[in-house]
């Protein structure tokens, strides 16, 4: 059960992988408050807990589906904790989301008696749950799935992107991801490497105000032509060439609990440039560069040096390729199988 279900986003992909991991051993139904047509789902209010049911609850923001968490109930409840973005990281015109995030944070300690088991995907998420008083916590990695690696790349994009030297960001274009900081960093790097470009792939419809700020910054720096916005690319054939031909993946996100695009980039041997905020260094695991957000000039110098040093870049590329298999779908399925054997309630077979 999730608040919002969309094909191609982190939770949407994860739910598809969970379905693949547990069927046909379990009968699976997906419940959501909001969703798109790509993945069929039932409305959250249609869920009626029965003995033997396992409710796999994806916790990320307050939603109508919190009504299912009023008490213990006859079912076995799993909290899959994706973290709640701190309200102060939303833009001013996202008051509704801000309020829902605040409610989800407020509700977290009150829910510790409701859940039978908690799943987290990073040490940072685990520390948040421990602070909220949760105890039965299991850490499982998120997988990136095989769809992207197996997709046939769009020929036009592949041909043109392969001719460019560019940095890549993939994710929602929102204040939490500090896109403004990333653009400033790109501007500093570009002064050292004038042919460098930046591609931003992700949904731009969350905050009109933040989009305006981005446009203002691009106009002020005079780099509008060098920054491309590809919008949300749910089709793996379109997304694949962006990852494949990128020189570096960049994210200065202020808050993350896993960051799937870092791992997706890793799968293509693309090193990441990020900051020491929240879980990013842990997920990256030494396959990239840690930059200081407060010293963008120094960070730009580091990145430009890395781009010029082919040997070091190749070394990081090799490390990415070595680390990426630990986030494969098969690996995640094996861990989940272990969780099932150890923690799920025993069911009497007919």
């Amino acid at each position, binding site marked *: 059960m999730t608040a919002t279900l969309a094909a191609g986003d982190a939770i949407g992909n994860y739910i598809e992988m969970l379905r693949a991991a547990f069927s046909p051993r379990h009968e699976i139904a997906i419940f959501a408050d909001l969703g798109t047509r790509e993945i069929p789902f039932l409305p959250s209010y249609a869920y009626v807990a029965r003995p033997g049911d396992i409710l796999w609850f994806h916790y990320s923001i307050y939603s109508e589906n919190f009504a299912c968490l009023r008490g213990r109930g006859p079912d076995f409840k799993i909290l899959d904790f994706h973290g709640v973005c701190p309200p102060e990281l939303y833009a001013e015109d996202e008051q509704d989301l801000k309020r829902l995030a605040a409610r989800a944070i407020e509700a977290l300690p009150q829910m510790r008696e409701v859940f039978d088991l908690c799943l987290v995907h990073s040490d940072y998420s685990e520390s948040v749950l421990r602070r909220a008083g949760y105890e039965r916590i299991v850490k499982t990695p998120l997988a990136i799935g095989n769809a992207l690696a197996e997709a046939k790349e769009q020929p*036009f*994009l592949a041909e*043109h*992107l392969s*001719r*460019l*030297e560019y940095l890549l960001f993939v994710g929602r274009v929102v204040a939490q991801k500090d896109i403004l900081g990333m653009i400033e960093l790109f501007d500093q790097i570009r002064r050292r490497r004038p*042919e460098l*470009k930046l591609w931003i792939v992700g949904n*731009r*419809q969350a905050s009109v105000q933040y989009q*305006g700020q981005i*446009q203002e910054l*691009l*106009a002020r720096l*005079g780099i*509008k*032509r*060098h920054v*491309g*916005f*590809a*919008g949300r690319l749910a089709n793996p054939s*379109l997304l694949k060439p962006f990852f494949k031909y990128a020189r570096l993946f960049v994210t200065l996100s202020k808050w993350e609990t896993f960051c799937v695009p870092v791992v997706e980039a890793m799968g293509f041997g693309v090193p990441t440039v990020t900051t020491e905020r929240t879980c990013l260094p842990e997920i990256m695991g030494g396959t990239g560069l840690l930059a200081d957000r407060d010293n963008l000039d120094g960070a730009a110098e580091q990145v430009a040096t890395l781009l010029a040093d082919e040997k070091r870049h190749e070394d990081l590329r090799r490390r990415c390729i070595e680390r990426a298999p630990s986030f494969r779908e098969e690996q995640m399925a094996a861990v989940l199988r272990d969780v099932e054997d150890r923690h799920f309630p025993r069911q009497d077979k007919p």
Partner: protein
Amino acid sequence: MGCVANVMACVGKENRARKASSHRSFEAFVGNEQTVSAQDDSGKSDSDLTMDQLRLFVSLRALGEGGGQDPAALQMVHDDLARLESELAVAGEAPEPFRLDQEDLDNLFLLKVRQSLEPEGKIKYLAPVRWLYSIFRRLFFGTQRRYNESATYLVRRLYSTALRTRYYQLRSLVLERRLKAIEMRLALLESTAGRPTVKPSSPPSESGRED
């Protein structure tokens, strides 16, 4: 019934005001984009041209999938349309100008809203109606918002489809023209292939005679 119609008129007025302000912000945004493009239009490198081609590609895709909600994508396609039109105009094959514009669609959208919300036309805005209006708004605001959202979505889809059709139409015209030019050059080459080639002029020999 008259009261209800009056209430509808108020809702329509509010809608128009909101729509007009969003239209102004779109114009301001596009104006800003154009200024920026004009500022750094000189000195394009190969990578800049590749970047432009890619931006156009993703803009057309965004129009196809997102219904034209991205002003930057719209502007990019508009710019390339203008370029194609001027290329055709220079060649003496200027097509009719593109008549469907954002403003026309705004008007269409407002007309549709007005037709649905003001079936009997405007009636004087009386003080007690304000009270009824506030009740009405509380009761039916969700329905009205959903209607407006779907109307806006449909108009956007219509606009982006028209824009993309126009773009591909002009591009085929330009490609056809180029193909014709290539065919003419080929025909010219074929016709000259049979003729004896002109020998390059050689400098006269020192004796003044041809060897």
